[in-house]
């Protein structure tokens, strides 16, 4: 027995040495994300904020997204209750995913890369590697749990108690360990490392969706769900440690199963046969557009789904907007204008925010072409009858189309949930939301054009487009609070567009910006025709 794990400690120390940078980023990043938002929540909770948030979070759509709270009356909805309610599930989710990726990366991926083969040729036990990785993952998550607790306590907020903070941290850390353990099991079963990653994330996703259903219908059922054991601890309110106990037992059993499975398999092989792909290509792949749709498919789908969900999330707060925004000074400064209804002015601002996010996807797609170029994926294709014109315009048009579709999904998602949340008191119809969204389309096209210009003239500057997008986003988002001079605000491209439905549609601005965007694309095209491909360089 001992032989199987021989010299695991050497491997373990080796991993710490190899991973220390990653570990620091992991713990700091996730730690700050999980624990560091206390001041922001204090800000939100001011005045009637807690009350508004409580009402908003009772919405079944919100519960299915972020989980329930045990609090029955708005009066008991303290800062701590709100923090745990809104943050814990997602922090746990992130911890799970990161730990799962880490574990698969150090087990099956290393087997595939041939590292394990080398390591096993030394006096190292057959299961020493898995054990070392498991210990590393547990250790990292314990440190993570302590860091989160420490960060939360350090803010000294009234209702953020020490016990609650430790429970919050421990819940996130436990979620990470759960993720690691599931990944360890799947790494034994699946035929390849990518299948192990995929199935682990699939399981996490499935558990999340199942709990969305049970949270809304009957929370008790969520307690059967391993994911439930992380966020149903209710820190700062009920401080229930019991679910973590279930999780520990579950992890121990799962780890034993994983080791038993590993003992019975060959290196580089799993228990399931490798799934066969297609031997020949479908007709839909066999063209330049077909290829680019295919290689961008995953990224397009996930972003588009995210836009719809984001729209729906913002839409769900329309019902209680008065309580939510009216009482919070910062919020009302950002989102309200005198003379128009709060819903309308909120729509104007939030649409601008969402269209900033929608602009990311076209940039991603345009930059994908230069990444493909640099990776040498296109080398052999250059010698075919495929032209640079086809490559360029396929990419730019695909990017623009995703912008159009993304706008529809974001605006539609917002409008759909907003209208149902407002019920009869609705002051806007679906058309208003869609129009407010497409009003910003020129700004989406402008970022597409900017990315296209970089692609054609200086592909290495492709990332700069993100920087400008981030800059304009921040400027617009906080513009209302900061009281900036006119010329300064105008450096953000969206500020040239009036905010519907509060302001009137400006046809001239719309047309001019669209023309400028198309001009940028054409300029980029001319550069793309002339320049050397940067393949492999």
């Amino acid at each position, binding site marked *: 027995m001992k032989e199987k794990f021989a010299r695991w400690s050497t491997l373990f120390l080796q991993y710490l040495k190899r991973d220390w940078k990653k570990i620091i980023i992991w713990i700091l990043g996730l730690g700050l994300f999980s624990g560091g938002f206390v001041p922001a929540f204090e800000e939100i909770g001011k005045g009637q904020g807690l009350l508004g948030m409580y009402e908003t979070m009772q919405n079944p759509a919100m519960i299915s997204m972020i989980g329930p709270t045990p609090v029955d009356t708005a009066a008991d909805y303290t800062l701590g209750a709100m923090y745990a309610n809104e943050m814990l599930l997602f922090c746990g989710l992130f911890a799970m995913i990161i730990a799962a990726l880490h574990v698969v990366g150090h087990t099956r991926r290393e087997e*595939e890369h041939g590292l394990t083969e080398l390591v096993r040729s030394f006096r190292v036990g057959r299961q020493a590697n898995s054990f070392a990785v498991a210990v590393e993952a547990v250790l990292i998550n314990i440190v993570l749990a302590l860091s989160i607790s420490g960060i939360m306590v350090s803010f000294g907020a009234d209702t953020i108690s020490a016990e609650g903070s430790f429970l919050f941290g421990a819940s996130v850390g436990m979620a990470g360990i759960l993720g690691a353990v599931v990944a360890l099991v799947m790494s034994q079963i699946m035929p*390849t490392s*990518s299948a192990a990653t995929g199935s682990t994330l699939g399981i996490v996703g499935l558990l999340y969706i199942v709990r969305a259903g049970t949270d809304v219908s009957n929370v008790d059922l969520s307690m059967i769900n391993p994911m439930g054991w992380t966020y149903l601890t209710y820190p700062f309110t009920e401080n229930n440690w019991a679910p973590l106990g279930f999780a520990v037992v579950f992890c121990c059993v799962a780890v034993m199963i994983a080791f038993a499975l590993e003992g019975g398999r060959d290196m580089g092989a799993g228990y399931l046969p*490798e799934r*066969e*792909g*297609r*031997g*020949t*290509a*479908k007709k839909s*792949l*066999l*063209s*330049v557009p077909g*290829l680019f749709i*295919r*290689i961008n498919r*995953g990224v397009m789908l996930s972003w588009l789904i995210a836009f719809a969900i984001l729209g729906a999330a913002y839409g769900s707060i329309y019902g209680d907007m008065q309580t939510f925004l009216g009482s919070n000074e910062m919020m009302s400064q950002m989102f309200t204008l005198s003379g128009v209804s709060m819903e309308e002015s909120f729509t104007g601002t939030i649409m601008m925010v969402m269209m900033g996010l929608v602009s990311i996807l076209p940039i991603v797609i345009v930059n994908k072409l230069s990444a493909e170029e640099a*990776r*040498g*994926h296109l*080398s*052999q*294709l*250059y*010698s*075919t*009858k*495929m*032209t640079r014109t086809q490559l360029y315009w396929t990419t730019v048009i695909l990017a623009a189309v995703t912008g159009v579709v993304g706008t529809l999904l974001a605006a539609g998602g917002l409008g759909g949930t907003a209208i149902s949340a407002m019920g009869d008191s609705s002051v806007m119809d679906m058309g208003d939301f869609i129009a407010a969204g497409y009003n910003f389309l020129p700004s989406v096209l402008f970022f597409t054009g900017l990315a296209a210009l970089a692609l054609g003239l200086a592909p290495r500057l492709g990332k700069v487009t993100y920087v400008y997008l981030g800059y304009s986003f921040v400027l617009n988002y906080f513009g209302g609070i900061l009281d900036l001079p006119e010329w300064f605000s105008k450096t953000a491209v969206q500020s040239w567009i009036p905010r519907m439905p509060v302001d009137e549609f400006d046809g001239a601005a719309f047309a001019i910006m669209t023309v400028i965007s198309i001009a940028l694309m054409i300029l980029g095209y001319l550069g793309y025709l*002339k320049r*050397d*491909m940067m*393949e*492999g*360089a």
Partner: protein
Amino acid sequence: MEEMIRVKGLQKKFGKFKALHDVTFTVNAGEVVGFIGPNGAGKSTTIRTLLGIIDRDGGEAKIFGKDVWKDSLEIHKRISYVPGDVALWGGLTGGEIIDLFIKLHGGGDREKRDYLIKRFELDPKKKSKSYSKGNRQKVGLIAALSVDSDLYIFDEPTSGLDPLMEAVFQDEVEKIKQAGKAILLSSHILSEVERLADKVVIIRQGKVVETGTLDELRHLTRSTVTLVTEGSVAGMASVNGVHDFKQIGNQAIFSADNKYINDILSEAVKLDVKKFEAVPPTLEDLFMRHYEV
């Protein structure tokens, strides 16, 4: 003979670095031209210029009598190319990628494709991210060989292939050659070039330093002779055309200038020859001679 590739005084700069100074060679129809040189000599840069992936800074480069940059599309209809490092989309299977390449080239042959997949023993149903380097290379080769072209450009095509598959590749190249097509074969594996090439172009630091048939090149250099005699072999050291003379007892190993080979033989006969072996220089010897410092 029809000229397929004609390169004259080709130059290319990357910023301040001059990658190609003066590259000049031709490839005729029905000819296999070996393009050899160490890493960084400019082989791939030359090939990329020929494919219109990068634009030249000077000189002339024509394929089928057309300019490689301006008329690249016309040219691409009739050429096939395999890069030295075939990079593939991990999410697509080998079969899908082969089909895509064939389709984008145009004029593929379904039967040829299936035949080549079998010959190269490729599993086309696997996602390409699980392919080894050799298997990725096979995908590129199968796609390039399945289409009918007049000129084939291979940039280190067999890197990562095992010797069996190398032999399959050489076999297929042999067939193309029989069919009267032209091939530009850049390679590190000199035995491969030696077997396949009619002509060799040696490039060094962006300049073509030697061109000719293997026989012509061999003539310029020396054979390695092993000689065992009854009498003392020491005297051979001073014969004209003998170089690098080494002696162990009655055995001598030296390199001999081919033009003095008769003089050397006559001198050796006087010593009562027991063994005489002359090995012609391999391409490797030729290659090394050019790069010796």
